[in-house]
């Protein structure tokens, strides 16, 4: 599945149709309706609505899960609990979607011609680790008395962001190397988010969790290094370097 980037077919630049472009530029496009909206109306409209808007939603209230013990997990209460659960939910959603994105990337790999810089095993290993990270977060949330099946507000926002990745990586027209750009952004975000979660765990005195999250972070660092390397190889190969 080689996708060479061809020159000449893209119709989007102005210069593609110089005659039509010249005709467009003959006319002033500024509206003269005189409706009377002030010059800063764009900003004022947005500010008014932003100030009036509520948050996308709330964090699910932890229920009591029968039989849970808190071995290795200290109880957190109040506002701290809300923030921690929200961020745990976010990471859980991200890792879970990440598994599916790697499923899609693996399909692209299988559809490709021989790629000497990456192996199927490496991709499957990353996919397995993303799954383990998701399950770690499931256990963590369960251990805190929270329901890991819920969608927290930050998980929701992460889902919105991830839709862009889904669109790029699942599109049959984007080959393996095109998808690597999206995966790189995913892994960059993932790395920073794990660091943030470790900081929160440390701040709440959750030593055991912090250790487990640090292990996950080390694996994510490896993922990032690998993806960077693959993208670099792929780009150089395409450029004939």
């Amino acid at each position, binding site marked *: 599945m080689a996708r060479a980037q061809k020159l000449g077919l893209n119709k989007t630049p102005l210069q593609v149709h110089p005659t039509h472009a010249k005709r467009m530029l003959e006319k002033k496009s500024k509206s003269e309706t005189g409706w009377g909206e002030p010059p800063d109306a764009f900003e004022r409209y947005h500010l008014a609505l932003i100030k009036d808007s509520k948050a996308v939603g709330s964090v699910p209230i932890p229920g009591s899960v029968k039989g849970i013990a808190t071995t290795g997990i200290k109880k957190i209460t109040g506002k701290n609990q809300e923030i921690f659960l929200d961020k745990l939910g976010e990471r859980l959603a991200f890792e879970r979607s990440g598994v599916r*994105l790697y499923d*899609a990337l693996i399909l692209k790999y299988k559809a490709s011609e021989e790629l000497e810089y990456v192996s199927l095993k490496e991709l499957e290993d990353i996919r397995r680790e993303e799954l383990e990270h998701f399950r770690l977060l499931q256990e963590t949330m369960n251990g805190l008395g929270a329901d890991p099946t819920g969608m927290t507000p930050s998980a929701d926002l992460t889902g919105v962001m991830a839709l862009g990745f889904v669109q790029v990586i*699942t599109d049959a027209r984007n080959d393996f190397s095109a998808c690597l750009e999206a995966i790189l952004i995913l892994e960059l975000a993932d790395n920073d988010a794990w660091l943030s979660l470790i900081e929160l765990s440390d701040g709440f005195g959750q030593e055991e969790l912090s250790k487990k999250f640090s292990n996950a972070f080390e694996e994510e660092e490896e993922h990032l290094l690998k993806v960077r390397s693959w993208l670099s190889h792929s780009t150089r190969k395409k450029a004939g370097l």
Partner: protein
Amino acid sequence: MAFDLIKEKGTPLDKQKFTWRELAGQPFSKLDVDAFTRIRVILMNGIESEALRFSHVFSRAHGELRETLARVRRTEQHQQTMINWLNPADQSPLETTIGYEQVAIEVTAALAQLEPDPYLKSIYDFGLLEDFDHMYRYSALMDRVEGKDANNILQSYTDILPGRPTAVEHRDPADDIRNPYEKTSTDPQSKLNAITIVSGEFQTHDYYMTIGPLFADPLARALYAEIASIEEQHVTQYESMMDPNETWMERWVLHEANEAYNYYSCVESESDPRIKEIWERFLEYELGHLQVAMDVFKELEKRDPQEILPDKIPAPIPYQSQRDYVRDVLESQAHLRAKGPKFVEPELEDRRSVKYRQQLGKDGVPSEIVAENYDWKPGTELAQPLDRLLEKIA
């Protein structure tokens, strides 16, 4: 809250006003809203969409009513906007799709139980199991492509199980046409039910046709193409229940009455106070539209609209989980097929429908591929079962 459909004047048409700010106002929270509020929002968008569609086609056939219809339609347009724009931007097209199928399942099941005519009820039962299966397929898509759990939208009110397999729902058009009710002898409830269900299915079809090509995943695109085709079949099926001899004016009066009935049903069940106010306001608007329609009806048909309307407002459509009813229908009727207007055992299905679906499916059937071995689990297929989680932690 009881009221008289004919005597209540509602809000006069010239007092029905809006601003852009309120039309594109605060959406509901996808996370915090009760699923039945989302169901009401989706259905009422469909009810208004049908009002506009009907009014436009009516206008083409009755030139003398063009301006009157356009005036009523302008408010319907803005009502539809205000309702549909309650959907928040973080609710993705696929999440909204899950909401649409939940509407189809819960509302169709509710209508089936309200339906006085046994034959018409059997049509609702037949269609219900097909939308039920669509939910299962879309849930599999959401899990396997996006890594998300459809139950975050369904809130456990509706099962995620296979219904009548989408793969066998594809039928020759002759097997989608049902026998219509007879307008003079049928219970007005049946007529209201028919308009409600056609409204829901038509908007679902249009929605899938609009968003289908927005998906990048090739199987997602194919699944939407497949299910959109069934939704067109459903519109054909439900529409065919309506007596073709109903006059345009009868249909208009019934449409307006049905809109009022649906808003009334929403008012009676709505738990969100802000959105309840919208339903209350629009109930008054529809009563105002009904007054306009009845005045024209009296003038043009020289008849009393009471002849075609129920004596009193029927019991509201119940907005609650219909799980037990759906499971009963699933158990007893999932195997049925259609032959002309009747529902039959699989071996009696006409060959024309079998050949039709074999042709479409010869390169693979998306609904089968996407959901192969799919068994919904809380938190998606990737999740550890909760009981295993408990063992690990204890």
